[in-house]
């Protein structure tokens, strides 16, 4: 292409540029730290919302508390597009197969937050109907207590999960790849 018809003036090749300070030309990092840093700020939550904790989930998602500050604002309503399963509310034995199916449909890497005491342990329910904590059927990464939890508690849970993701190993190629 003729340079005179192109609106951007081509710069000189990098090798001929001279900079006084070459400190920021290269960054070195560890692979796990880099991927962990990227992943902890791009959590796509799937809200599995069953009960009254939903009100507090709406509060923490809305603008006053703004989980987008942590990169965790955009809910995906397909588990295939999500990597954070937020189980918000009581899960009954009748519902447990649905929760398990949703969890199994999520792609790796994936994390699970038990939002509120019912999802964490069954809460004050202990009867024929209630599953006493979702960790009986799926692994849980972070438990958020409260009935319902305050938005600050949820944000603390998200930040703890972020720390956990940042500290984790992030294999690029796994045995299942």
């Amino acid at each position, binding site marked *: 292409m003729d340079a005179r018809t192109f609106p951007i003036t081509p710069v000189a090749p990098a090798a001929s540029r001279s900079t006084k300070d070459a400190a920021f030309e290269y960054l070195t990092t560890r692979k796990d730290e880099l991927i962990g840093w990227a992943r902890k700020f791009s959590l796509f939550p799937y809200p599995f919302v069953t009960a009254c904790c939903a009100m507090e989930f709406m509060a923490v998602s809305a603008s006053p508390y703004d989980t987008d500050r942590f990169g965790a604002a955009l809910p995906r309503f397909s588990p295939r597009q999500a990597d954070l399963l937020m189980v918000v509310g009581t899960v009954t*034995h009748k519902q*447990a197969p649905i929760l398990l199916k949703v969890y199994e449909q999520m792609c790796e890497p994936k994390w699970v937050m038990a939002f509120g005491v019912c999802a964490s342990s069954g809460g004050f329910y*202990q009867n024929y*109907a209630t599953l006493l904590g979702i960790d009986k*059927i799926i692994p849980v990464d972070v438990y958020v207590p409260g009935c319902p939890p305050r938005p600050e508690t949820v944000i603390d849970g998200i930040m703890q999960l972020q720390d956990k993701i940042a500290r984790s190993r992030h294999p690029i190629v796994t045995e299942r790849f």
Partner: protein
Amino acid sequence: MASDDLGTLQRELVPAAGPATVSHGTIVLVLAAAELVTTARRLRDEFGFDLLLDVTAVDWPADELRFEVVHHLYSTRHRVRVRLKTRVGAGNPVVDSLCALYGSAAYMERECHDMYGIVFRGNRDLRPILLYEGFEGHPLRKDYPKLREQPLVAYREG
């Protein structure tokens, strides 16, 4: 409907049973299981009780007639509530369905069947509505173990 109609209801509907009472503004009629449908039909057609509010039961484990099946009716015209109490035994816990009188009876009787195992003769769909297929027993009976769970998903080990 004035409160002195309590005596009228008593004389007309359940002459053989004990006296009708008023509990928290609700007229309470105690009747035999065989009288349930005829009484409910008269309450609907002659006394204006056009709304079936609830069908539930009470378990009295020590009693010979163990289950007390309770119906609540409401008259939107007179703004009066009436409660019908019927006793059935544990061996044959059968009462007649009110499906033919009130469409809303179908689901509430299904729930009562779930929770207490009361059989409503004439209700053709008594499948589980709140419980799930395969659930054994009736959880609101007093002899259902409080901590018994019937999970559908196998628990993780550990």
